[in-house]
């Protein structure tokens, strides 16, 4: 379910390395929690981000959710398709609906993130808590 070559954060973002770029998005768990996505607010190309810093918002009908940089870097690309088709975040959160691509400041930070197995265990725990 969760791609094994991605890394994941507790705030439900994922990172996929593409050479010296890190593609970043929100996970399937996050899009499901949010509901129908209607709007995405993104940073400008060139913005420098620190790991843990908020870089934008993903909005559903009911909620506004901040998104946090999993790793540090400089914004190299933002996904141009999301302005007109924000719902693609619900449909393909791990693929077509990546949010931004960062020029990685340091690959050492990746080691701090969860792998797919750890993330799946993490959300399984969350679901247990929620239904308790």
């Amino acid at each position: 379910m969760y791609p094994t070559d991605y890394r994941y954060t507790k705030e439900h973002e994922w990172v996929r390395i593409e050479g010296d770029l890190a593609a970043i998005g929100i996970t399937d768990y996050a899009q499901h929690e949010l509901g129908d996505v209607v709007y995405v607010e993104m940073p400008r190309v060139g913005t420098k981000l620190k790991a843990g810093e908020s870089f934008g918002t993903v909005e559903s009908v009911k909620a506004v959710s901040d998104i946090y940089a999993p790793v540090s870097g400089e914004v190299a690309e933002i996904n141009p398709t999301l302005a007109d088709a924000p719902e693609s975040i619900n449909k393909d959160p791990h693929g077509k609906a990546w949010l931004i691509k960062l020029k990685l400041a340091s690959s050492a930070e990746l080691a701090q993130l969860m792998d797919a197995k750890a993330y799946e265990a993490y959300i399984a725990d969350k679901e247990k808590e929620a239904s308790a």
Partner: protein
Amino acid sequence: MGAKMVNFGGWDMPVEYAGIVSEHIATRTAAGLFDVSHMGEIEVRGPQALDLVQFVTCNDAGKLADGQAQYSGLMTSAGTFVDDLLVHKISDGHYLLCVNASNQDKDFDYIRSHGRFTAQAENAGERYSQLAVQGPKALGIVQRLTRAPIASLKYYRFLAGEIDGVRALIARTGYTGEDGFELYFAPEHSEKLWNDLLEAGRAEGLVPCGLGARNTLRLEAGMCLYGHELDDTTSVWEANLGWICKLDKGDFLGRDALRAQKQSGISRILAGFEMQERLIARDGCPVLDAHGKEAGRVTSGSPAPFLKKNIGMAYVPVESSAPGNTVRIAIRAHEPVARIVPLPFYKRAR
């Protein structure tokens, strides 16, 4: 049923099933089924039931025929809202008030505190479950399960009948801006009627709908929500609900204050707006005047799934409230433009 649940005023409620957008659109194009059993019911009975109802509400319940309902306000002596509600006249000396879930006990205590009338108020919430079927296909779906003449029930009229053998009060009312029915019946039949209605409506596209769609539907229809557009600081005139305020019906709580305010005028009024830029105004966002100072607050703000716009309601200075006028709304670091529009945003084709 795969619903996302939330705690709403002590009730475990579904926010959405398949998704707010699809539920909302289904209600406008086919039909939606809403479990609204959390709503409160207060029965008022006795020789002076009408007098009691008239005293605590602002609309004229004396105009109601048997089997007729009206939208009204439960008033404070300042002319502001304890709650908004539907008043149903069952018969002389017998009224059923449908009130907000979160205000049930407050409303009951309030009505009961006006004890000088020969009438009994009963907090009847536990005796009623409520389901709403709303949408252009609602009539056909409910008719499948009843022999009662609901096709000839006019808007805001109700009758006592049976839904698949279950005794129910069937009202042609709703909180969506669509045609439809609200059904009141004994709680032990809830599961059966829920399933029966889903089954009866399946071929017509009836879907279960949660609180999320309930909110976006009523907002598009320009309907108020207590705690947002209405509370004990908002007067009937400020809320733009003058049409439910009958100053000449006789004395009622708040009448003097409302008369005085009518004379002196109001400084703020509830208005509808449409965002002119892509950002979405949310509940509580400040509305800014021409100098960038806070002049009001958004009471309800959301995307409108059917109209495909971002809309909301806000209290604005009267001088800024004319449709066509623009204001700015503070949303995070931005101040996008919103245009005042007449309410309702959506009106169903008749």
